[in-house]
């Protein structure tokens, strides 16, 4: 009897295990059936719907993109788009693994710099070179998606990573945008003397990574200075970076950044600007729409500090192209995925996206409907440099660079801070 009971228990357990395993198996089988149906999209009988997965990190764009996806599906019967978003940190950590096994992300997005490099190395990008929709873009603005002559991704958003200033406050105190470093310091001094915080600086998170770009652009007017640093051909202890750190220190020591700037996060720095306690926000054009939403009375423009004499200034500001659209090289539905990117690349759809999200785009001739988006249009004709921080491809080096700014704001000498950062870069050089 006991023996029977034991055998019965064993049988039940076996059935359970087999059921669980077969459930997994059938689930996989279903997936692979769908996939094979889709992979053979050209031969499949009409009416078989194909679902493509679109993953990205911009949760704030979901509403706008839902509307666009509906239009795409209406225009392309038989193709469904399943959109999935995750916060950017999670996107960095989770999405890359999912992309590698193609479980999601027929269409996906990538950051420029370290993530683009890693995904390109892993062969995750399908080659988009020669696709007709590329002609819709400003060619200079999609360079960041190229590698070895191939267009692996298409940067969709255009950002000017230059500080934002409060136009009305500037007018109130008779200030104009300065053309050199002395002029910038004089402007900050005037604002300070009027009881206004000259620069709201999110030193705890995004501040160093944003302001460093325009601070360094004329101290070393080069497109590849950090590439040279990472190759060991230049050093952070060279004059260009020590000077940049000294100027950060000068801004802090003279009280032109708000008190305790290193403890201030993005939202708090933004609040100082939105509440008009600060005249300049060391951020970028991506923040314009959000600021306006929270304070409709704000009039905003961009202003990059010129850290040299006026006649030595080569660049007027910084730009970045990001939210890079790509097709997974392992996608079972590459044709449908490219169709979706082509749809997003249309002038009208790109305009719809831009105006609904408050982000400028790299697509040509888009009509922007808000003053905030038109700010960036004016900057399109200026001489701007691609964000130097994103030319640092090793994230440890990137952090070492931005941390050296935090170090000088903590009281370290620019020379020592540069030396410490270079020591970290040197460790990566030897690997």
């Amino acid at each position: 009897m006991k023996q029977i009971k034991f055998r019965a228990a064993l049988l039940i357990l076996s059935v359970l295990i087999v059921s669980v395993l077969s459930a997994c198996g059938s689930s996989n089988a279903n997936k692979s059936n769908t996939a094979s149906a889709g992979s053979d999209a050209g031969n499949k009988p009409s009416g078989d719907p194909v679902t493509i997965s679109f993953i990205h990190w911009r949760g704030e764009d979901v509403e706008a993109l839902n509307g666009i996806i509906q239009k795409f599906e209406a225009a392309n019967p038989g193709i469904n788009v399943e959109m999935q978003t995750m916060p950017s940190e999670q996107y960095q950590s989770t999405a890359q693994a999912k992309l590698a096994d193609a479980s999601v992300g027929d269409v996906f997005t990538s950051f420029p710099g370290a993530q683009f490099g890693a995904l390109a190395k892993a062969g995750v990008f399908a080659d988009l070179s020669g696709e007709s929709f590329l002609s819709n873009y400003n060619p200079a603005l999609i360079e960041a998606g190229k590698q070895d002559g191939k267009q692996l991704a298409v940067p969709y958003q255009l950002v000017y990573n230059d500080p934002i200033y409060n136009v009305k406050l500037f007018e109130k105190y008779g200030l104009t945008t300065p053309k050199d470093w002395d002029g910038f310091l004089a402007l900050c001094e005037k604002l300070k003397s009027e009881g206004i915080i000259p620069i709201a600086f999110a030193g705890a998170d995004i501040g160093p990574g944003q302001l460093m770009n325009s601070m360094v652009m004329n101290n070393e007017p080069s497109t590849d200075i950090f590439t040279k640093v990472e190759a060991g051909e230049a050093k952070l202890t060279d004059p260009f970076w020590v000077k940049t750190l000294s100027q950060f220190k000068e801004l802090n020591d003279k009280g032109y950044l708000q008190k305790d700037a290193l403890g201030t996060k993005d939202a708090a720095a933004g609040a100082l600007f939105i509440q008009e306690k600060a005249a300049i926000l060391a951020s970028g054009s991506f923040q314009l729409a959000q600021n306006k939403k929270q304070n409709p009375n704000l009039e905003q423009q961009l202003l990059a500090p010129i850290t040299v004499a006026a006649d030595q200034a080569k660049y007027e500001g910084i730009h970045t192209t990001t939210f890079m659209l790509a097709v997974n090289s392992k996608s079972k539905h590459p044709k449908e995925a490219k169709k979706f990117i082509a749809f997003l690349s249309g002038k009208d759809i790109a305009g719809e996206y831009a105006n609904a999200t408050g982000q400028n785009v790299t697509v040509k001739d888009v009509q922007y409907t808000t003053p905030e988006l038109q700010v960036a249009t004016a900057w399109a004709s200026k001489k701007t440099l691609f964000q130097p921080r994103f030319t640092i491809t090793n994230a440890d080096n990137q952090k070492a660079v931005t941390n050296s700014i935090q170090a000088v704001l903590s009281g370290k000498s620019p020379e020592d801070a540069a030396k410490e950062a270079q020591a970290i870069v040197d460790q990566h050089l030897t690997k």
Partner: protein
Amino acid sequence: MRNRKLLWLFLLPGLLLYLAIFMYPTVTGLFYSFTNWDGVSPSYHLVGLDNYKDTLTSIVFRKALFNNVKFMIAVVLAQTAVSLGLALLLVKNHRIHVVLRALFFFPAVLSSVSVGLIWSFVYDPSLGLINAALDRLGADAWMQNWTGSTHIALYAIAFVQVWAHAGQMMIVFIAGLQTIPEELNEAARIDGAGRWQIFRRITWPLLAPSATIVVAYTTIQSFKAFDLIFTMTDGGPNYATEILTTYIYHTAFASYAFGPASAGSVIFLIVLSVLTALQFRLLRGNRIAYS
């Protein structure tokens, strides 16, 4: 014999889960620590002990390890003292004590990410509650750049860690206190012992098993801290709050270096195991019993 087979049968699901969820990642992590895998590429190469050598000589890893030790010591000392103090105050089963216990335990049920975000606002130097309160009380000399100072940021986070978990450890101490027979205290009082003497000679020695649990648990918990630091400072400013878990995370998911990150994880596991074993050994010697 039959019981043993049945025992194994019932253990099997748990064992399978343990193997799949804990052992498999641990073993694969150990394997990847000897490779140059970037976490995305389908291919990788064996690099021997290079990742270990690079990790152990990394400036940032060393800073992180040093910060880890400082953070752990601060949290273990403060959390043990605070939770013991709370337990001694709230050990009785009066209604008010029960309510206060629930209040002090409450932070433990909050997600640590929420706690980190809330305290980020509380600590904000210009808009935060603490500096605002100090200012209003006329104690502006005490106002600090809590998470923005390289000198105090780590301790500011340690305070939040203690705030979040002291209530949990208080429960362990209360359970320990409730096992001490009241007769012992009474006998000591009759013999003329004061409160301090009773605590030193009776309560504390008999609390040794609870203290062992609290200290060991707090050590592990503080050494493994991640969410609070990640949400409050992300290791900054200038690596002042970088600890091993954030170092491993940044290496794996920002630098795309899974091989070195796995080596860091293995070193982390070894350090943590040694620490825990040492503590158990040291604290086990303190146990006594009265009969």
